[in-house]
């Protein structure tokens, strides 16, 4: 079997002279990776699954008691947790939709022959390269009601972006859109440049309007790669922590990751927070699965 799938070792090579076979070399490469995955991913995953059914607290010496589904029951009955989920859902929708619109829009603008195209694209990618914490701190200053530049430029007076409970989440989402639209732009640009030019020529000969061309040619052909961008951004937005945590402490911006952090590392309810993390994991996996199904469908077309 192995001889069929693997290239044979050159009998003259140093490895062969040391008496190593194809299989031992394959194992040499694969086993460390597998061990690494088991120790750092699989083991903690299973270990925390066990903890999620106990009342374990890492801050005490008390042994973990088996409590069955009590943690899950309590979490799903907690109105604050449901608020956290609603806030997160709202944030994901606003933020990802914003990134797709802005990112794809900019990509459309850039997808033509303009001078300094490479330089402009690189500059547009800068926000993505910054640290989340730094972006959060900078935008906090930009939003400041007393001296912030955003109110000054928009002429909003002393509008309180981050202290207004209704506005704070959108303010955070705007920051996220600013930071991650370039990512969507980059992927869209790759997708756009792969659309065959002759399709547009054919459309032009048939006198198709720009809207028709966009919806019938551009969008369907870019859709698969755009879907990948959306999957990535949704997963990221779902676990947003740093930006929101740094910028504001409004209860209206307390997303699940923030609540989870507080539960795990301020209250030290280790068992309960493991259960919470599992609920989040299941949701993310479910949402991603829906996306992937849809992605496959789009690809088939």
């Amino acid at each position, binding site marked *: 079997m192995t001889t069929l799938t693997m290239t044979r070792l050159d009998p003259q090579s140093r490895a062969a002279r040391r008496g190593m076979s194809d299989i031992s070399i394959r194992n040499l490469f694969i086993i460390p990776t597998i061990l690494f995955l088991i120790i750092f991913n699989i083991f903690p995953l299973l270990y925390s699954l066990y903890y999620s059914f106990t009342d374990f607290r890492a*801050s005490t010496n008390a042994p973990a008691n088996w409590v069955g589904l009590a943690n899950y029951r309590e979490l799903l009955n907690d109105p604050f947790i449901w608020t956290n989920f609603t806030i997160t859902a709202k944030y994901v929708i606003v933020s990802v939709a914003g990134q797709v619109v802005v990112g794809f829009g900019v990509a459309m603008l850039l997808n033509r022959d303009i001078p300094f195209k490479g330089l402009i694209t690189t500059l547009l990618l800068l926000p993505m390269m910054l640290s989340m914490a730094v972006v959060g701190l900078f935008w906090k200053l930009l939003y400041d009601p007393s001296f912030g530049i955003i109110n000054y430029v928009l002429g909003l007076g002393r509008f309180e972006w*981050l*202290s207004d409970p209704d506005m704070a989440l959108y303010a955070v989402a705007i920051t996220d859109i600013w930071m991650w639209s370039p990512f969507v732009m980059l992927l869209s640009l790759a997708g756009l440049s792969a659309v065959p030019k002759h399709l547009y020529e054919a459309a032009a000969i048939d006198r198709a309007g720009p809207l028709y061309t966009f919806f019938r040619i551009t969008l369907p052909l870019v859709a698969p790669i755009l879907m990948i961008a959306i999957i990535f951004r949704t997963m990221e937005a779902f676990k947003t922590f740093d930006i929101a945590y740094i910028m504001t*402490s409004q*209860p209206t911006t307390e997303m699940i990751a923030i609540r989870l952090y507080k539960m795990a590392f*301020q*209250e030290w309810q280790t068992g309960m927070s493991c259960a919470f993390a599992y609920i989040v994991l299941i949701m993310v996996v479910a949402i991603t699965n829906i996306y992937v199904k849809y992605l496959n469908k789009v690809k088939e077309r």
Partner: protein
Amino acid sequence: MRRRMIGIAGGLALVLASSTSVLAQELTIFWAEWDPANYLQELVNEYEAETGVQVTVETTPWQDFQTKAFTEFNARGSAYDMVVGDSQWLGAASEAGHYVDLTDFFNEHNLGEVMAPATVKYYAEYPSESGKFWAIPAEGDAVGWSYRKDWFEDPKEMEAFKAKYGYDLAPPKDWKELRDIAEFFHRPDENRYGIAIYTDNSYDGLVMGVENAIFSFGGELGDYANYKVDGIINSDQNVKALELYRELYTYTPPGWAKSFFVENNQAITENLAAMSMNYFAFFPALVNEASNPNAKVTGFFPNPAGPGGDQFAALGGQGISVISYSENKEEAMKFLEWFIKDETQKRWAELGGYTASAAVLGSDEFQNATPYNKAFYETMFRVKDFWATPEYAELLIQMNQRVYPYITAGEGSAKEALDALAGDWKETFEKYGR
């Protein structure tokens, strides 16, 4: 083979060499990042000069202090030998065995009398009235107020104030006057605001601000001896206290929804507010002209009385504890013996630390050293504190969840917020079998 033996011997030698450097004594004290930690470093430098033991004060920002300390404790790490920990940690840290029991040390040196009574009660003893001690009161602290003397003493303002409210404009004696003055100076058109209060809900900022009102209104957070909360946390006076705190929030500068000690000092240095709530530990920066351009015209007053004449303030400050997992416990105890000496405590106060030593606090020398030391001395005998039970962090987060939306956004009513909080706390105490 021989080469391998040499390698092993070399490795062993290296291990021995590095362990001898541990023997050359070093102690690490963990604290939050603020001025008193710098004063403590200056103080312990003198200990090094005396004994040759090198002591380092390691710090981290306040927001991470609790998380970082408990992560280290829970991992049974020996990175720190001592910690200057918050008073509300006592329950969690003593029950989990993170702190060394200092009861014998405490009794041997009669610290119950050497240190001011409130500091012993809140920084050292757990459970309350048990006679078991886990920390040595190190940095006494409580909430006080700073104000703009030049605004208060402006003849035009004084005249206008008297005409409007019928009494003289002066530092407030009670919370009603505090409210009036905040309202009087609140002039958004002139970019001047009435008052700066604590609103940060990420740790204990907002809760301590609210405590100042609740305790002075004659209220309590609960019965600390038997964990009864219903009818106490949601009592009538607490509802009134919370309503007043909400009203004060409407006189704060714009964007004041995540404010703690840094912002509240800025309110004075940046000419934003007439009065500002803050811990005494942050007042040295306000009398220093390098950090406060208004240093000459900044005055101080203690937390005002409530309608019934009660006058209490929220306790800040910390005690110093020895960590059970330290490899230098004996050396740490020797350090504590030096730390509690009268001369050391006096020097600690001179450097800017807030000693808890009753003798030093009572001395004229201390009380006249700064414009606010007298107010500090008076306040330290009228302080109250939050719950110190091991589940205090949950109680704190629940209080933030219930109270914050009411204070900063006017959601619901004070009564609703406190009733809901009483329910949350009751449930939490039941969960832990209190």
